[in-house]
């Protein structure tokens, strides 16, 4: 078994590029997509130069969430026609329009924000018109300091804390998605070893089946875990992502997620013949799992019940839910016990099926030779 570890380590030392590049990619993508850089929404804005629209523009420019480019109305119309990913905003005195190709949540949120700005400004103008600038200051103070009544927000589920953190959602989502690839690449060695005949030689050597599989799988597991932990540590301690005191819980859940993904990849390679087949299938499944498991978008926007029911098939879903619950919602590890035990159960099941299939196929392979 030590020999297997040494061989794998040697292999890794000779070809470290894939592993390193995958890890780096994971970090870069998770970082950019979770809003680390360049996440502010670029808006193309045109106004009709009335006081009102200019004031709204000024407010937009002061918000950190938006990067504003000011254009004339004609330029704006022209650019919106030509470009795909741009969102345009046309501000008039009493009306506004949002120009975009698709009607997404972003567009709806933007409309709400713009509407609030207009209303606040109109309110201000009205107060000033009726009572003068000095009264406005008093009114503003009253609004800020003396609310009419308070809305105390809390979570419906008593074991949770009410919080919304979209950035952490996408960080976890993309991390789980990319780690899916990196881990499964670690398991493909079995196919490579089979092709080159090393697998059979190992079987002939004085080494038990258990040692053979355990040696290989434990090594793959450790590499996968190191990769995942590297990403998590990087985000927690270098980038400084707030995990709401759930850091160790995140580590524990990740270790089970790595196990599940490894088991899954083992299952896949027990079904296919070549490395290229397995990478195509794994890459397609990773995308499909990310979609149905809620890594790209929160699952609540999905309307189709059939698709929602499919989330239980996705390993990413278990990881995603458990991670979100222990951090954002402040649940305990016991609280997400269902997800963790499902991960362990599925992992065990897939490892058993995978190894059985691998053994069967090799047996047949021998007889045909």
């Amino acid at each position: 078994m030590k020999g297997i570890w040494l061989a794998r380590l040697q292999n890794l030392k000779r070809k470290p590029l894939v592993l390193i590049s995958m890890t780096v990619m994971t970090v870069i993508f998770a970082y950019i997509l979770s809003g680390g850089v360049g996440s502010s929404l670029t808006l193309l804005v045109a106004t009709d130069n009335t006081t009102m629209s200019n004031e709204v523009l000024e407010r937009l420019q002061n918000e950190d969430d938006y990067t504003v480019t000011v254009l004339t109305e004609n330029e704006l119309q022209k650019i919106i026609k030509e470009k795909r990913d741009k969102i345009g905003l046309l501000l008039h005195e009493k009306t506004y329009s949002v120009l975009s190709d698709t009607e997404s949540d972003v567009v709806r949120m933007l409309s709400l924000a713009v509407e609030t700005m207009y209303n606040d400004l109109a309110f201000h103008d009205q107060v000033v018109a009726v009572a003068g600038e000095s009264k406005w200051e008093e009114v503003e103070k009253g609004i800020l300091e003396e609310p009419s009544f308070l809305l105390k927000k809390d979570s419906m589920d008593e074991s949770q804390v009410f919080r919304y953190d979209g950035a952490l959602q996408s960080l976890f989502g993309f991390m789980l998605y990319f780690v899916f690839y990196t881990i499964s690449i670690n398991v493909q060695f079995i196919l490579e070893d089979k092709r080159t005949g090393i697998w059979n030689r190992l079987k002939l050597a004085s080494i038990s089946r258990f040692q053979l599989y355990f040696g290989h799988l434990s090594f793959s597991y450790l590499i996968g875990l190191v990769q995942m932990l590297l990403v998590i540590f990087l985000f927690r301690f270098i980038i400084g992502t707030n995990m709401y005191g759930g850091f160790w819980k995140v580590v524990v859940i990740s270790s089970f997620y790595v196990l599940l993904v490894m088991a899954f990849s083992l299952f896949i390679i027990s079904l296919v013949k070549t490395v290229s087949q397995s990478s195509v299938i794994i890459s397609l499944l990773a995308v499909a799992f990310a979609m149905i498991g809620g890594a790209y978008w929160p699952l609540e926007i999905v309307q189709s019940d059939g698709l929602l029911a499919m989330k239980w098939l996705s390993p990413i879903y278990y990881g995603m839910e458990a991670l979100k619950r222990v951090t954002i919602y402040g649940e305990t590890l016991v609280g997400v016990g269902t997800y963790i035990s499902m991960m362990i159960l599925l992992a065990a099941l897939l490892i058993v099926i995978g190894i059985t299939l691998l053994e069967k196929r090799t047996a047949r392979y021998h007889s045909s030779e």
Partner: protein
Amino acid sequence: MLLSLIGKQMKMLLRNKQPLIILLVMPVVLITILSTALASVMNSDEQTAIQARLVLIDESNWEQEEASIVKFLEEQKVRGPALEALIQTFESNDPIRILEGSILNSEDINKYIALEKRQPAELDNIRKDKEIDGILVIPTNFRLNYIKSAYFDEHETPDMDLLLSQENGIRASIIQSVLHEWQTGFTKSLALTKVGISPDEIMQNGQTIERIEQVLQERERKIPASIYYTIGMLVMFALYIPTFLSGFALQEVQWKVYNRIILAGVSATLYAFSIFITGMIVALMQQVIILLFGKFVLGIDWIGLEGMTVIVLSYSLFVGGLSALLTTLQLRTKSDGVANIFSGLVVSIFAFLGGSFFNIGDVSSLLATIGNFTPNGATMTAILTIQKGQQLGGIWSYMFPLYGWFVLCIFLSIVLFPKRGVTS
């Protein structure tokens, strides 16, 4: 000779089930799933689909509290007709009455929030109900305390509990923002009253802002989810063609078929050229099939035939070039490592950046710009531009990166192709 080589490649593709499944079945399945699942996110006419369920639990009501309010007013030395009038005003300004009667009942809000009234005893059960997105709990003496605090400064600011479901962040945030507006409205009028301005005067004259829907010209239209994902999957899955073709080529080398072909007098260049042509034909067929699927099954009306032809042909050319390049690299390195990395990683990342999975511009403008330089992203943007109803002239800025990639593939294939034969 060329024709028989192409024929051989096509047969290899057709006789393996796996390429057919991945090149045709997968995209069709994904298109169907994605365009139905995400229709509500992208199609503006289906906005109402997201309706939040709010439960209102009122531990008292106006009638119950009226007596204690009257008593309180009497203690404040308000009597006779003045008291009656005041009670009237308070009743009509009761925040909960306004919330129930005017705000949540209005047509605009009704679309987004469905209100339900329940008894306080049920609270514990309702909290566990996964179907409910928010609960507003009004405590017993809220109305009295509100009047005391707002009009007489005699009580600390009253509060109420808003319990929100975490299962459904978007719906919860709709509820939250509507209730927040409601609360701000009262705070504003309170602040106005305190400085001696009549809230009615301000609120009634206040102009309301109107959102005007984007004006589209006659030929223009918005992109619905069905078109978006058909194109997204189309450009993504064409990228798997080179993997299969180069995989076959490597197999031929391993099985010594390649050497036999060379021995038969076929030049290595012709062999590479046949892969280029095959890749192009397969890509063209795949794209036409997917587009026809969109037309007949999803009912998409493809417009701008001329532009579509130019784009689809150009993309097919590129896929052919990429097939030649991947084959070249496989034969040179004598391993399937390159194609593995390509199909496992590069395709996913390109598809991701190009916006095949979701509109990446919503998440990061930087990534969207990078995405437009990937061959698939550029093609997707070009097709979407045509489908939006733009003229052919609008697509060239996207076609240039695509042609750039094509030239690069061809150039590298010519330079790198092993001309002296390959041994396994």
